[in-house]
């Protein structure tokens, strides 16, 4: 049923429909409303779940780790500094192959202190072994949570996932979403069937000590699971489409890309603004298209190379910066296109909540056409 609600509440409802058995989170803006809403649902008996109050994000994810290892479907949400405090536990969760789903309400990292949106927080965890999905709107954010549990809990995958949606820009926006029913979600997402679990009667340990004779192989197995996740996301994304009418079989998604000469590449909410800008540029005769990356980990390198084979120029819009290098998305797009004759330009923009308008998208296309890129876009020169 279509209803209008705030993005964070839409995600909280989607999480409820996934029936997490354990939730642990330490509220930090802008993900606050999600866990507030979930706490309320537990208090109102709308959700049968163990809601664990903790004293920090490190503890929140540690509690999730334990709960997941004990065989529970587990959920958390965080952002920016909160995610940074989970850094160590993130690697442990992935290494222990625990299928936890966590919402990231994307936000800038301090210092300078900022509560506003960019994607630096989740990008900084790109090497941690978590699947990373990015939502363009609140419908996608809602849907990707349901998809994420299905993918992560597959015994061929057994990986945790971030579902990333832009802080404030989506978390605090009221817009209509199609909310599935409990029956529909239950039909898509079976009850959690742990591959293995902590059991006093049949004891095992998670996260064992691995000497140099073994560590490399464990990491290799993690990498193989991550690469298998590509097919799993496609498979369960297609199944999602069959059941809910919204297809997520693609790790990437094209918009007016088929006949485009210039392709923009981006992740998250900026894609909506880009689509509106593309419609206007198309009306002026400019053949521009968008390649949206929905799944950043595993990185869809082959999919990107194949989707861009006819393109001359690519402009990557990065809401992050790997300081001392480039934007994280551009780096990997360049790697995916290595050996091709496509010109790839990187634009760092929107950091710390700087608003991005249609005219900015058009200006970036102009810059890319002129061969000017690998730059911060929208700098206030008078401050420098």
């Amino acid at each position, binding site marked *: 049923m279509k209803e209008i609600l705030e993005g964070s509440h839409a995600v909280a409802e989607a999480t409820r429909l996934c029936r997490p058995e354990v939730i642990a989170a330490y509220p930090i803006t802008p993900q606050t409303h999600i866990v507030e809403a979930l706490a309320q649902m537990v208090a109102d008996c709308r959700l049968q779940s163990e809601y664990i109050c903790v004293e920090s994000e490190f503890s929140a994810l540690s509690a999730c780790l334990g709960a997941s290892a004990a065989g529970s479907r587990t959920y958390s949400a965080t952002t920016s500094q909160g995610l940074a405090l989970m850094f160590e536990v993130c690697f442990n969760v992935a290494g222990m192959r625990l299928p936890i789903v966590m919402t990231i309400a994307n936000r800038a990292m301090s210092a300078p202190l900022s509560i506003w949106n960019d994607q630096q927080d989740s990008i900084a965890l790109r090497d941690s072994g978590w699947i990373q999905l990015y939502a363009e709107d609140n419908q996608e954010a809602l849907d990707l949570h349901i998809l994420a549990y299905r993918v992560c809990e597959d015994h061929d995958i057994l990986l945790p996932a971030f579902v990333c949606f832009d802080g404030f820009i989506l978390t605090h*926006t009221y817009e209509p979403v199609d909310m599935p029913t409990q029956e529909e979600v239950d039909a898509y997402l079976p009850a959690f069937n742990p591959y293995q679990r902590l059991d006093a009667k049949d004891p095992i340990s998670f996260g064992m000590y691995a000497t140099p004779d073994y560590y490399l192989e464990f990491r290799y197995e993690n990498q193989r699971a991550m690469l298998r996740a590509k097919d799993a996301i496609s498979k369960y994304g297609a199944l999602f489409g069959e059941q809910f009418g919204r297809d997520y079989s693609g790790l990437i998604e094209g918009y007016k890309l088929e006949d485009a000469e210039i392709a923009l590449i981006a992740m998250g909410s900026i894609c909506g603004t880009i689509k509106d800008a593309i419609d206007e540029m198309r009306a002026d005769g400019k053949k521009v298209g968008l390649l949206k990356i929905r799944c950043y980990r595993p990185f869809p390198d082959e999919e990107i190379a194949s989707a861009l084979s006819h393109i001359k120029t690519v402009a990557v819009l990065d809401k992050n910066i790997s300081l001392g290098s480039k934007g994280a998305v551009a780096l990997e797009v360049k790697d995916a296109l290595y050996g091709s004759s496509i010109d790839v330009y990187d634009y760092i923009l929107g950091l710390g909540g700087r608003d991005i308008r249609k005219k900015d998208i058009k200006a970036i296309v102009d810059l890319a056409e002129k061969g000017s890129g690998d730059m911060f876009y929208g700098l206030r020169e008078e401050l420098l």
Partner: protein
Amino acid sequence: MGFFLRELRIHGRGGQGSVTAAELIAVAAFQGGVYAQAFPAFGVERRGAPVQAFVRFSNEKIRLRSQVYEPDYIIVQDSTLIADINVFAGMKAGGIAIINTEKAGKYSAPEGVSIITIDATKIALEEIGLPITNTALMGAFAAATGEIEFSALENALKERFEGKLATTNIKASQRAYEMIKGGSA
């Protein structure tokens, strides 16, 4: 009906309910069968600081995520803001500005923009007992623009507030709605 996208920008101060106003206007518009999007301009969240909130209305799914720079409508919850901020910035010709003030005629609008003033503070103090003016201004917005039906607004207020808070806010909203409809503001 051809494609339309209309935009509202609300200027207020933290604590006056600008964000709630945007949300409830979007809820009411959605009930009226259009796509609506409401979001705040993520400012410093403290009482009294200038804040903005935005609403978009369209007959198609709204993809645009930037803030509103060329509004069709503005609501000014606190007229003291006009001294500090150009609240009229970017307003479209034919636009409507709804200003909370007790001094009708004090403010002049850019060419092509019409101003509707209403003493929402007085209404709020009399009906709710607090100088929180958002619900009165929502009523004025419904009456001045026709973008939302009063009945839809009433439903949205009933969903959001409970008991006496709902009754008093609906009354404030209705009084403002009728004042603007009757042209006696």
